């Protein structure tokens, strides 16, 4: 089944073809990812679907209807749209942000309320706690979750997402990727998703559309794309992404993500919140002055401490949650087992003395596996 069909679509800016004779079919209920080098026309392609940009030539059909015959405002209300910079309206509460389109469509109040609560629960955010907060009172990851919910509010059959997770740290990105994939499968929406990140594409896509200079270079399932690249360009583009080495994956050290967001236990609450906001994470790994692991603390716990006006000043005095760890010298497959069996958000990679070196996430494992299966260059 075809949901969105691009037929000989061109877009010309200042005499250059930004999108050049694009022919593409996006299947109903599938997750389609547009990927390609910067400036190849991904955003432009996406914006033509909801008519933020009109093509210079060619036609776009949604369920067989030529969208140039539709009223752009009505069209947009039926297509969810998530932008990279999130763009939650700072003057509106979380609930008001989610209810923008329902209001435009004149939904009754009770229906709006119910829907907002339902959506928040869907991503594990307590409606009572979050509905009346403002975007500035949320972490980056939480804000982007709301950005997605806002786009899903009226159950649009199509969801357009333009690098929605680009600005987030690896841990948060990882968990949001899991969430969006789950949501997409549950709701059966047709997603057209733009990214720069091949790992993200491989993880999420049913079909990857690799673009180059406004044209489709290859459109295929992730497996097919990796095993059967049609050109050197595709090969190189996959290779350029940070898939790990093709020699044997042995230790956790080789597969971990070294950019764990840590904070010294002596730091203050405000500093911790600032760091979370800056790095866009939901939780921090707490270490002592030697980077020795103390535990983790989540944004909710920090906020709660801030509110109680308790005498807790230092992050280390908060009740610290224990966290699964793995030795950096262990076998990578031990990390794999741990993640598969216990399903934690991440594992902290430490040495014999509990010094923190990095984290292992599902993405790290996928990367490592992809490296083994398909082979790749050095990097990481």
């Amino acid at each position: 089944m075809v949901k969105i069909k691009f037929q000989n679509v061109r877009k010309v800016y200042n005499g250059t073809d930004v999108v050049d004779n694009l022919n593409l079919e996006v299947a109903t209920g599938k997750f389609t990812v547009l990927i390609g080098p910067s400036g190849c026309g991904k955003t432009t392609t996406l914006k033509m679907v909801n008519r933020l940009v009109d093509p210079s030539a060619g036609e776009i059909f949604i369920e067989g209807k030529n969208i140039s015959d539709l009223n752009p405002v009505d069209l947009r209300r039926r297509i969810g749209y998530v932008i990279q910079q999130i763009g939650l309206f700072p003057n509106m509460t979380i609930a008001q942000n989610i209810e923008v389109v329902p209001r435009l469509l004149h939904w009754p109040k009770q229906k709006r309320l119910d829907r907002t609560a339902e959506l928040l629960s869907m991503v594990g955010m307590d409606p009572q706690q979050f509905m009346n907060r403002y975007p500035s009172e949320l972490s980056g990851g939480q804000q982007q979750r709301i950005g997605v919910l806002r786009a899903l509010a009226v159950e649009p059959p199509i969801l357009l997402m333009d690098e929605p997770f680009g600005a987030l740290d690896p841990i948060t990105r990882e968990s949001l990727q899991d969430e969006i994939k789950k949501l997409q499968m549950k709701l059966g929406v047709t997603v057209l998703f733009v990214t720069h990140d091949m790992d993200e594409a491989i993880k999420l896509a049913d079909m990857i559309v690799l673009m180059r200079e406004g044209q489709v270079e290859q459109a295929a399932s992730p497996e097919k794309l990796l095993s059967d690249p049609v050109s050197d360009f595709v090969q190189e583009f996959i290779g350029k992404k940070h898939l790990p080495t093709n020699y044997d994956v042995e230790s956790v050290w080789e597969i971990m993500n070294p950019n764990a967001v840590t904070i010294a236990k002596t730091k203050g609450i405000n500093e911790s919140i600032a760091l979370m906001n800056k790095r866009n994470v939901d939780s921090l790994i707490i270490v002592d002055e030697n980077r020795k692991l103390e535990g983790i603390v989540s944004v909710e716990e920090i906020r709660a401490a801030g509110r109680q006006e308790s005498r807790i000043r230092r992050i280390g005095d908060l009740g610290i949650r224990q966290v699964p760890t793995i030795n950096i010298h262990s076998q990578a497959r031990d990390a794999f087992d741990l993640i598969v069996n216990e399903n934690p958000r991440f594992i902290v990679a430490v040495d014999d003395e509990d010094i923190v070196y990095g984290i292992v996430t599902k993405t790290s494992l996928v990367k490592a596996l992809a490296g083994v299966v398909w082979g790749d260059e050095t990097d990481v």
Partner: protein
Amino acid sequence: MSDLPIFLQRNWGTFVNALGTHLKLSFSAVAIGICIAVPTGILLTRFPKAAKKVLAGVGVLQTVPSMVMFGLAMPLLGIGIRTALVVLIIYSILPILRNTYTGISEIPEKYIIAARGMGMNGFQMLMRVELPLAGSVIISGIQLSAVYIISWTTIAALVGAGGLGDLIYTGIMTYNYSMILLGAAPASILAVLTSLLIGWLARIATPRGLRM
């Protein structure tokens, strides 16, 4: 100074009259100024090229001292309240116009794209996104304008418009310090209070999400 009560008693009627005129003039000038400047400012955001020129012109006009403006208007429009009102309205427009324009055009593009992408039409975008986000800048333009206008209304006495400036002016001419104070003190208090009041209104009207 010891016969201040007697002085007050004798001039109470004049004072109330002057204060009334002052309030009426300032208030109408700012109110009319808002009605002209806010829509014009919004309109200008839709024509950014023209806006540059208009605002440059407005900027030049704003450097002209008030007394010069009254002086120039008087031979054209005659003596009296009408002349004063015209000049005051022109002045009240400037800060509000500029702040409306910059307030709206400096809204980060992401909010505009998000709003359009969600299917807001031009009017909905204006009411739900642009005006709320530019609100505090527009209001501070109004605050500035109101303070200026209260000040310039005192000068309007020169073209025979009355108001508190009349008392100050008469006081200076007759070396009557009580009379000067009777005009100057209320004019100053009026300006300070107006400024505080508008600032306070702006603060309580700002949603919590924008206060941080």
